[in-house]
């Protein structure tokens, strides 16, 4: 019974209460009276009845007003308050109930509002704490990512199954060098989150190294590491250092450091490993060159020395006739001359290798000069200026000792000749670099100045056992004093060996997509290899390759060909923009003019691109161990399958189709085109209509679909496949 009905009943009851007793007692009096008395009552009451009825009606009206008022204030007021409470509970957290009505209701309102206030404060507090915690985690992650990307060493972190959890851009470059198809996939088929390290390294090699580390852990070795050298795909030589990732979490995480490190604590179990990679192909070449040089200088001279020595010893015999004597002398002359030549040749040829013995680093010359300027100004308070500085020059230096030498020289110039300003100049001279330290001022003798280079460097509280000469020699360089008489200036010229420009980190590898690169995913630590097939795996935990192709036309069976493949990866529910695959393909046939507006690929863009038999193996490697996803997958798969025979590459992994899944989710929608779905799912599309652009949109759509599918009870790969098969579109054959 709703409130209104109850009100009506209350009114009826009120009416009955007000008239009922009077009417009943009147009826009783009427019945007990004789006819004469009844006549008397009619005469007496009859004319006054309207007054009584009026009073009754008046009383009833007042009663109704009172009941109505009570009803409004207590019943309807409470009902309204309940609705408002509901509003506060769900839709509008900031809503507060207005204080209105009788004091009892008002006090209820106050309590309710106070409770809401308390709830809001609690919620805000929890949210703030969550945000703070998230921020600190994010900061730590960013710091780690920044650190990793700054490292000049390649670092790859794997879990125990050999899946890659983290890598830096240097590692990516290194893997690119290892790739068999560097131009096609850029090493992306080798390195990527969730990929297996075993595609690069022999499983046994890694297993052996892991065993070594386990052994080290058991015997409580302080820092168990394993080293191995292996060859990569393209004949590259890699030196690998493996160290363990030890459990810090769980029970052991609660323990203080000291307890954990105690022998026998047995909490140090491995959850993964870190690989530090060093491409030593070039070092190795250098070393073999050095070996070869040593060999030429030692073994290569043995025979010649033997000849000389024997001939010389023959000359001692008194019974030697003149002709023979001449011949022995000839032997000595010829051999010694040949040895001298060999020595020169070797010295020239291996001069670089000899210099490389010092651990010199390659550095941009301009950076060294900038550092020198800063230090001279800060430490010696001598202003500096730059003359021509060739910003492209790389030098091979030990920057610490070289800067020390420069500071020392400036310090002496300032102390002894009151030089008030120095200038730097950097220029190239063939394989050498000239670094000039210039000053102007009073004349000084060459001897004085050049004697500085033989004294141990000490200045401004710093002292070094090395002399400037030592430093220069360490660099395989030279130094001298020159004068520019016209300008009343002099300068020290330091000659240093030039270095080949370092490969700058390929910015395209870093800059794709916004924000921080997705080079790590610690959630992968939680992965475990399931023995059963992929069918019962949750959609949320699978790794996907989402791809799209552009083709010359729609009929692969009539000779239409793939001209572009684009793909991206989804790992642990995240799309990895950095790990994408994009490759144009030479279709070996003409593009029809009507297809060009669709894919936007001009015929000249395909000149010199690899053919499909080169691209498919790389794409296959990129997609290995993943589930394939495409929009209208049947179409793309048909193109891939028609190439199976020719290329020997078979794509037999599970395939999901976002078009079919969309049909499962929204069976009553007319359009299941990519744009339409994206719009439905509130996705903003940029850069469509390239294979990679479409693949990325498809990936985002798929990620949005996963929770929607789960609402329909579609959680595993098997569920998704079966649902898609049932859908109407599945019956259409392409």
């Amino acid at each position, binding site marked *: 019974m709703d409130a209104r009905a109850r009100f009506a009943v209350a009114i009826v009851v009120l009416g009955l209460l007000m008239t009922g007793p009077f009417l009943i007692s009147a009826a009783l009096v009427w019945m007990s009276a004789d006819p004469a008395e009844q006549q008397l009552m009619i005469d007496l009451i009859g004319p006054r009845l309207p007054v009584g009825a009026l009073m009754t009606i008046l009383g009833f009206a007042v009663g109704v007003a009172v009941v109505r008022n009570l009803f409004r204030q207590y019943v309807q007021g409470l009902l309204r308050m309940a609705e408002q409470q509901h509003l506060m509970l769900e839709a509008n957290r900031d809503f507060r109930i207005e204080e209105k009505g009788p004091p009892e209701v008002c006090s209820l309102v106050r309590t309710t509002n106070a409770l809401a206030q308390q709830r809001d404060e609690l919620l805000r507090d929890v949210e703030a704490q969550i945000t703070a915690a998230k921020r600190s985690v994010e900061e730590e992650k960013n710091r780690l990512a920044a650190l990793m990307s700054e490292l000049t060493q390649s670092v790859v972190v794997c879990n125990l199954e050999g899946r890659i959890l983290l890598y830096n851009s240097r590692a990516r470059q290194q893997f690119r060098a290892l790739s068999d198809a560097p131009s096609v996939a850029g090493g992306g088929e080798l390195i990527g989150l969730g990929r297996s390290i075993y595609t690069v390294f022999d499983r046994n090699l890694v297993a052996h190294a892991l065993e070594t580390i386990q052994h080290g852990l058991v015997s409580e070795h302080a820092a168990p590491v394993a080293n191995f050298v292996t060859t990569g795909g393209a004949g590259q030589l890699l030196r690998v250092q493996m160290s363990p990732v030890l459990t810090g979490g769980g029970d052991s995480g609660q323990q203080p450091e000291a307890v954990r490190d105690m022998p026998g604590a047995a909490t140090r179990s491995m959850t993964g490993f870190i690989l530090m990679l060093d491409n030593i192909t070039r070092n190795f070449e250098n070393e073999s060159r050095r070996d070869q040089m040593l060999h030429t200088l030692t073994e290569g001279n043995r*025979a010649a020395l033997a000849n000389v*020595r024997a001939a010389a010893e023959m000359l001692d015999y008194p019974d030697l006739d003149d002709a023979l004597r001449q011949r022995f002398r000839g032997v000595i002359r010829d*051999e010694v001359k040949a040895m001298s030549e060999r020595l020169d040749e070797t010295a020239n040829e291996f001069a670089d290798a000899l210099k490389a013995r010092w651990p010199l680093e390659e550095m941009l010359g301009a950076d060294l000069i900038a550092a020198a300027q800063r230090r001279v100004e800060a430490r010696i308070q001598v202003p500096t200026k730059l003359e021509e500085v060739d910003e492209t020059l790389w030098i091979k230096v030990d920057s610490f000792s070289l800067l020390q030498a420069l500071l020392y020289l400036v310090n002496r110039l300032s102390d002894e000749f009151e030089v008030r300003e120095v200038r730097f100049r950097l220029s190239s001279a063939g394989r050498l670099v000239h670094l000039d330290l210039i000053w102007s001022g009073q004349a000084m003798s060459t001897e004085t100045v050049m004697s500085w280079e033989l004294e141990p460097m000490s200045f401004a509280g710093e002292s070094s056992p090395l002399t400037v000469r030592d430093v220069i020699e360490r660099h395989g360089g030279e130094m001298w004093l020159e004068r520019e008489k016209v300008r009343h200036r002099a300068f020290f010229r330091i000659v240093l060996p030039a270095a080949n420009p370092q490969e700058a980190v390929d910015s395209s590898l870093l800059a794709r997509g916004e924000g921080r690169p997705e080079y790590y995913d610690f959630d992968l630590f939680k992965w475990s290899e399931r023995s059963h097939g992929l069918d019962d795996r949750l959609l949320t935990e699978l790794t996907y390759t989402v791809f799209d192709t552009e083709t010359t036309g729609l009929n692969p069976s009539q000779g239409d060909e793939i001209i572009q493949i684009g793909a991206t990866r989804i790992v642990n529910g995240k799309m990895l923009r950095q790990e994408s695959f994009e490759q144009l393909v030479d279709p070996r046939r003409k593009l029809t003019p009507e297809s060009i507006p669709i894919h936007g690929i001009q015929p000249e863009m395909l000149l010199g691109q690899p053919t499909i038999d080169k691209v498919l193996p790389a794409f296959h490697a990129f997609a290995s161990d993943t589930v394939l996803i495409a929009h209208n997958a049947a179409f793309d798969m048909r193109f891939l399958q028609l190439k199976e025979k020719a290329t020997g590459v078979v794509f037999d992994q599970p395939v999901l189709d976002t078009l079919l899944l969309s049909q499962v989710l929204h069976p009553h929608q007319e359009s299941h085109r990519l744009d339409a779905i994206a719009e439905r799912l509130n996705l903003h599309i940029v850069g469509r209509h390239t294979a990679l652009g479409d693949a990325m949109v498809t990936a985002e759509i798929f990620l949005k679909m996963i929770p929607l599918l789960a609402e329909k009870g579609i959680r595993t790969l098997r569920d998704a496949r079966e649902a898609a098969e049932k859908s109407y579109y599945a019956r259409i054959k392409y």
Partner: protein
Amino acid sequence: MGNKILIADDEQNIVISLEFLMKREGFEVSIAVDGEEAVEKIRAEMPDLVLLDVMMPKKSGFEVCQEVKSDPALQSVRILMLTAKGRDTEVAKGLALGADAYMTKPFSTKELVERVRGMLAEG
């Protein structure tokens, strides 16, 4: 004495010294300038001792040594290997292949003569 010596070396500049030295000792000297010629001359002339260089064209000293030592008919031929390779491992190889003695270049000619005399006296 009339001992026969074969000098097998492709380097003319050492052969001239060795030839002079051996002739001066009163030996009968013949010369081979590569591995194949060395084997032929050993079979044809049956020298008492061969001064055998390791690095020779056509056949290396090691090969010559192995061939000679595996032929029972050539049992009496002694071999002194001369080599410009000073590593212990190569000395070991020469001796293992049956060389009777081994000298590393550069060597003292006096020592060489003594070694040759000693080896011939043993035989």
